[in-house]
């Protein structure tokens, strides 16, 4: 089958999924769809049917890079400062302490596990452990969307909104730093670049992209021109970051932040970006499934550890964060369950790690992501119900 036709089929399946599976199942039965697309990718991939050959996946490699950039921009668009400053400071402190504690706990446990299981140094164990820590902190927004649909506004919903945004920010930043710190030296450069320089370059790509967008758009408000500018700059930003071996997610995150805070058309831009968010997520899931190579010998312990360590860290860190800010009565002791869902950002980070040729244990990391996403997707209905029961505002906690 030709790569073009496969791409069409991919997008078509994602399109159908977005509109029928997600819309109907998600709204009526509180089920977050996605696992079936991961399974579809596994079935179509080289491991099972071989319809997607490795060469074919390689020929479509630019597409995931663009999807990563697109997701990064969507995350960045959530940081609209004039709205964020209206939210009380403790909400951010809770979200940030939960995120950092999760990163620290998962990194420490995974680093120890890698060192013990594979008999390697801390230096070698750091990239997969830190990648898993970054992935662990990310949380899906689906639970937030379901909860906010049923509860409307309130302290719990605001906390969930901010926590998922900060989770995504910390996850992408941690992962971006990992790629910068362990970057392979370029052959064409005069001297090796430091990790700080790579990080600055990541941010620079996003910010220059933002500047280009404004220059390009000028004073025009024409929606077609806005779309050309948005698509062109996002493709450029994603391509530049991927070409440099940096994270398209991080570069595009900065681009998104700049855009939402400086553009008059932020609502139109956000609408254009989020319109294809769900189909893109499902395409990424199919890619993820097809790219997955399970390693029976090595994956069980780190993957199981990841799933359990993440759950424990998320719930524990959320509780600690809320207690430190004296917000436990408001949020409930188990409010961290609402952050257990893993979605697009986790898959995106997993694919990003997989695309870095020089990192070890890529498939172990990826297996952990796949397992976590499958598990949280399948238990999403139960999770959402238990979150409802635990929310003091809903009366379920009384």
């Amino acid at each position, binding site marked *: 089958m*030709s*790569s*073009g*036709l496969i*791409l*069409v089929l991919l*997008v*078509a399946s994602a*399109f159908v999924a977005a*509109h029928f599976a997600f819309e109907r199942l998600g709204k009526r039965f509180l089920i977050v769809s996605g696992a079936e697309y991961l399974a579809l990718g596994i079935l179509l991939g080289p491991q099972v049917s071989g319809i997607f050959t490795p060469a074919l996946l*390689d*020929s479509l*490699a*630019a597409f995931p*890079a*663009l999807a990563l950039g697109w997701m990064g921009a969507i995350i960045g668009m959530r940081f609209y400062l004039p709205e964020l400053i209206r939210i009380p400071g403790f909400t951010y402190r809770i979200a940030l302490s939960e995120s950092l504690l999760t990163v620290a706990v998962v990194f420490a446990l995974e680093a120890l596990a890698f060192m013990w299981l594979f008999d390697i140094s801390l230096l070698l164990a750091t990239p997969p452990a830190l990648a898993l820590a970054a992935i662990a902190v990310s949380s899906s927004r689906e639970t937030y969307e379901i909860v906010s649909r049923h509860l409307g506004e309130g302290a719990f919903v605001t906390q969930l909104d901010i926590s998922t945004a900060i989770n995504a920010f910390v996850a992408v930043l941690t992962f971006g730093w990992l790629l910068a710190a362990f970057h*392979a030296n*370029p052959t*064409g*450069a005069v001297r090796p*670049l430091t990790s700080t320089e790579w990080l600055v*370059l990541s941010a620079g*790509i996003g910010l*220059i992209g933002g*500047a*280009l967008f404004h*220059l*390009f758009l*000028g004073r025009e*408000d*024409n*929606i*077609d021109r806005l*779309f*050309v*500018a948005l*698509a*062109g*700059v*996002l*493709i*450029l*930003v*994603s*391509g*530049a970051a*991927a*070409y*440099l*071996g940096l994270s398209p997610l991080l570069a595009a995150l900065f681009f998104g932040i700049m855009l939402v805070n400086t553009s008059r058309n932020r609502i139109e831009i956000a609408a254009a970006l989020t*319109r*294809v968010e769900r*189909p893109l997520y499902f395409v990424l899931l199919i890619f993820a499934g097809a790219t997955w190579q399970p390693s029976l010998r090595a994956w069980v312990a780190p993957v199981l550890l990841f799933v359990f360590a993440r759950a424990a860290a998320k719930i524990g860190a959320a509780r600690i964060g809320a207690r430190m800010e004296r917000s436990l009565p408001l949020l409930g002791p188990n409010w961290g369950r609402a952050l257990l869902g893993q979605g697009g950002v986790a898959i995106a980070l997993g694919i990003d790690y997989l695309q870095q040729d020089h990192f070890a244990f890529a498939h172990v990391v990826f297996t952990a992501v796949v397992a976590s996403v499958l598990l949280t997707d399948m238990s999403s209905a139960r999770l959402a119900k238990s979150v409802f029961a635990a929310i003091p505002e809903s009366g379920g906690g009384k």
Partner: protein
Amino acid sequence: MRRALILALLLGGVALILPLGSGARAPYALLTLGFLMLAAYTVAEIATAAKLPRVVGYLLAGIVFGPSLANIVTVEASVTLAPVTSLAISLIAFLAGAELRWSEVRDRIGGILKILTSELALTLVLVFSVLVAMREFVPFLQGTSWTETVAFSLLFATIAIVHSPAVTLAILSETKARGPLARTVLGTVLISDVAVVLAFSLALAIAQAIAPPAGFGAAVTAGTVAWELLGAIVVGAALGGAVSLYLRFVRKELFLFALLVTFLGAEVARMLHVEVLLTLLTAGFVTENLSSEKLGFALRHAMERAADPVFVVFFALAGASIRLEGLTQMWMFVIPLVLVRAGGIRFGCAIGARWAKLPDAERRHVWTGLVAQAGVAIGLAAVVAEVYPVRGAALSTLFLAVMAVNQLLGPILFKRGLAAAGELQPATARPNPETVPAEAPAT
């Protein structure tokens, strides 16, 4: 100043990034795609300020940043970006088909066929005659026997009569011209595509009979041609029927749907070995004529929205494929051939329009829309190069040089023609895309 700053930022950014990169193919193609979209759009703005069509700006950007000059868009990147070109051609064909309503075709078909017959015949004869007259000098005819001269000249002349639906549609999309001249040119260009494919198949069969290729050339049988054309109509009609059903019952996400339809149509056509352009053209035509005017408009608008960035990249890549070296080496053949072709089109159109008793404005300016060349012609030249590896390759090189000039000259002439016929709307009179409903409400 703003445009210069954009180009400086883009060039500076790329110059900074390239030495630090890994050289990986897919990310480089993505980087090139983004660069090309923004750079070509900016150059097109400069072209517009100089009263030139945007298409010319895109083409010039491709030439400047392509392998002939700056080499930011490398040959490898162009190959990796081939799906964009394929998508663009499909989108153009679908849109072109969707522009035609049956009632309008019925009213104009007589005039269009008369123009087409005289224009194609005169141009073919003139180009053929010039090549035969210059046979001692033209690279791919030097040292050939008379039968070979006739065969290769006939093949060249058949490819030379091809027009460019892409340029026509891009100019109409840019200028929003919808007058009689615009409609006649569009109809002529679209129908000529079918006629030219038939004529080329016939010319290739004659050439293979009188100058058999060495070894095993790609044999073109009547059955193959019939399937390519009739199969395309059948597949296109089925696709168009499916699209109109979607429009009637679903009507959601037309933008994404438009992109999928064109991609899917092109892939299915390739799989079934039918003519891609004709398949999408038929699909567009069937969709437009089976759907209500409101739904047809909604889909067309969604497609035009998708087409804008795709057009930019398509024409910029077309510009990047122009080899300036070939043009500078062969200018002494290129100039006469361009002039003779343009003369053939002009006088052929004049005769045909008089025969069809068309109004004065159309009679005088219809030729301006037929000078541009691209798309199908490149494919046909590649077929000749495949069948006759040595002479065909030389023929293809000269043809591409001629086409490069026509590609740049054609849009300028057509825009002037539309202006002279009074069919260019002032910018303020054009509908604002923002106010046009992107999608029909779902029921």
